[in-house]
């Protein structure tokens, strides 16, 4: 060995660790890996959040305990959490459906408002008579909410399919139009005594709540969870069937992954673009209807603190799995509720942010295997 060579080896050795970290793409992802990695990411996020809390002088354990108590501590707050989760499940599902086909519908917020507007119109214009039964009123409201939401999804869907207009822009802008349109009605047409809200709906337009059954079961007293949750869960099951079991779901997946291959397989992309956007809008619209019928019972400003946008995050966190959307939405509902309880209110948001970050980062672990290989000893 020449001295030159020896020197080279010596210098290169200085920079080497005794092991090597190799990143290899995974050929197949085992079924159990995804939930395990997601759980790991949430735990890591909570640890990181705890570190930050400790750093600014708080007690992370107390803070977490408080958040948990405020969101899930007793039947009352749990019920409130579920109320918050209901619209989130529906907007999360709306985004899930569209994102599966790589249609970036960020207009769930607007579709939510339109759903609320549609449901209000049938009540406030007297389209359903005031003495109609609750079943009839709610059914008509449901249809109106779904149709209005679907229409708000149809517009960007049609523009995208026929004129290739970017749906991100149109859905985003339609949000503002929907909100302004709602405002027009509550400031002008249905303003009650100059307040920016309509009058309260008649009782038959209220979705049944758990508290309504308190007479039969006293334990339900004061529980606000309403029938919208049932809509949300049924919707999740339907979306799950469509995406995983139906022929249409297969087409949506195929178009989402490779539109040219889908076209080659004889799938009508134009038609599916419009249909999927309408389906997505209908789900968000149902969310708006359920919020109006189950919680506020009137049309007013700011019915949504950004449910449509949170729906985007929820869809991603659930990895576009409609069933997983439910627990994720409940977690977020809890964090929103806890945000009112805890000071400063930013803490649950901070945790939300870190969780999102960790979950997205953890995706690498699903796609790649990280191996630590011991360097072979040089002989």
């Amino acid at each position, binding site marked *: 060995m020449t001295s030159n060579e020896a020197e080279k080896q010596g210098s290169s050795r200085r920079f080497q660790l005794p092991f090597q970290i190799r990143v290899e*793409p995974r*050929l*197949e992802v085992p079924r159990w890996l995804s939930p395990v990695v997601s759980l790991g990411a949430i735990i890591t996020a909570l640890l990181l959040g705890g570190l930050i809390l400790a750093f600014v002088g708080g007690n992370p354990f107390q803070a977490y305990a408080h958040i948990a108590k405020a969101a899930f501590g007793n039947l009352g707050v749990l019920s409130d959490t579920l109320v918050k989760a209901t619209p989130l499940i529906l907007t999360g599902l709306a985004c899930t459906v569209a994102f599966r086909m790589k249609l970036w519908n960020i207009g769930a917020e607007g579709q939510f408002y339109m759903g609320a507007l549609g449901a209000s119109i049938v009540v406030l214009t007297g389209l359903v008579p005031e003495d109609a039964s609750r079943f009839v009123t709610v059914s008509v409201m449901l249809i109106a909410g779904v149709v209005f939401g679907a229409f708000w999804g149809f517009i960007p869907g049609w523009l995208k399919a026929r004129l290739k207009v970017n749906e991100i822009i149109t859905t985003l802008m339609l949000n503002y139009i929907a909100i302004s349109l709602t405002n027009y009605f509550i400031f002008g047409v249905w303003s009650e005594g100059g307040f920016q809200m309509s009058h309260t709906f008649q009782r038959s337009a209220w979705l049944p709540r758990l508290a309504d059954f308190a007479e039969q079961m006293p334990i339900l007293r004061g529980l606000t969870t309403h029938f919208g949750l049932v809509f949300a869960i049924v919707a999740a099951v339907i979306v799950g069937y469509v995406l995983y*079991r*139906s*022929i*249409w*779901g*297969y087409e949506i*997946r*195929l178009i989402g*992954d*490779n539109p*040219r*291959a*889908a*076209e*080659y*397989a*004889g*799938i*009508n992309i134009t038609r599916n673009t419009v249909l999927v956007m309408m389906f997505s809008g209908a789900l968000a619209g149902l969310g708006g209807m359920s919020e109006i019928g189950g919680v506020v019972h009137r049309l007013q400003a700011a019915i949504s603190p950004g449910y449509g946008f949170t729906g985007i995050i929820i869809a991603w966190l659930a990895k576009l799995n409609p069933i997983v959307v439910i627990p994720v939405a409940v977690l977020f509902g809890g964090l929103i509720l806890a945000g009112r309880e805890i000071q400063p209110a930013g803490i649950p948001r901070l945790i939300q942010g870190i969780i999102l970050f960790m979950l997205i980062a953890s995706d690498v672990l699903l796609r790649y295997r990280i191996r630590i290989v011991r360097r072979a000893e040089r002989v």
Partner: protein
Amino acid sequence: MSVLAGLYKPEAGTIIVDGESADFNSPKDAIAMGLGMIHQHFTLIESHTVTENILLGLDDPRFLMKLHHYDKKMETLGEQYGMQVTPAAKIWQLSVGEQQRVEILKMLYRGVRVLIMDEPTSVLAPQEIEELFKTLRSMTVDGRSIVFISHKLNEVMSIADRITVLRQGKVTAAGIHTATTSKPELANLMVGRKVLFQLDKTAKEPGDVVLELKAVSSLNDKGLPALRNVNLKVRSGEIVGVAGVAGNGQTELGEVITGLRRCTAGEILVNGQDVTNKSARVPINLGVAHVPEDRTHVGTAPNLTITDNVIMKSYREPPLAKGSSLDHVAAREKAVHLKDEYTILAPSVDTQVRMLSGGNLQRVILAREFSAQPVLLIAMQPTRGLDVGAIEGVQRLLLEQRDAGAAILLVSEELEEIFTLSDRIAVIYEGEIVGDGVEADAQQVGLMMTGGKESSPEGTTS
């Protein structure tokens, strides 16, 4: 050529420039040595101006662009070589010919002495080709060298001083003086005449006409004519080979038949039924299978599993479809069965197809298309990029389909393959079928493929 331009590193051998061996790590190194390349697909930024594109990546305007100053410079440089350019124009406003001039200027501005041009005429109109040739001649007068890559014999004969023939990455003839050769001789060198292996092909009397194209015309993606007045018939139990150099309308031919591209004129019949400009679903339902040219972008959905990919054409029909539901168990069974039958090498049918090698990916496509027992099979470059063993397998499968009575349209750039498999040969050149039903004569076909059919073979140009 990409090796010379510094895009790829050579695995073996050396490049010698001006008597010194050169080691390129990037196109920058190659340009520094005086070697520049103009790709067939231009490398320009559409929303920038001509001057900005030429200056891109250079150190000279360091911070302030001083565009006016450089605009002048570009204009003078252009005039020097007889090229008119508008330096302040944005690239997207220019015609293809003008864009090419910008590419040439880019190289001249960098002081390139050897200019490599990959199929520079393929995107140009005849008149633009003349202008290009003028520019190239004025450059050679100036002492610069040009490597002109083309498959069109007429052009090569008219512009080149010396000719080198490449076939499958090997030089088959180097440095022939243009004056001493002829088009037939070149055509011969290009196609070769060796047959690698013999397949047992039984003689078979073809049946009824399955596919018929009547005077079909169509445009390519750029809106230029890709197919001109194409007439073609394929009978059941017969393989019709379409020979031609890439980019002469083969892709478009496959696409119009399968409903992926609109015809501007003409009629396409499958088993007597009109499928002209119908959606892709119509030919599929009539039993037309299609092995597409582009396996990853058209033929498969990369992130879906093998199962999802093999059911792409059959998922709408029973037994896979049950009402509005898809029977996943049946789909998986089908996939497992096909994986065995077509020896697709993968851990399981749940593997995403992007993980598969080129040969296995092609088997996924073949399994899907062949298992449907098609009446008509459009096979586009079915063996491209496969190793010898895989090629033979694919060719056997094609013959099996033929013997089972399918009508097959085989489009391939490999003449050997066309000659081995086809019952009849059609030659396509610039979107026209220039020879139909030709008896196997490699030299004649080679000549027709390169546009040398019309003019008589002569060898005195320069």
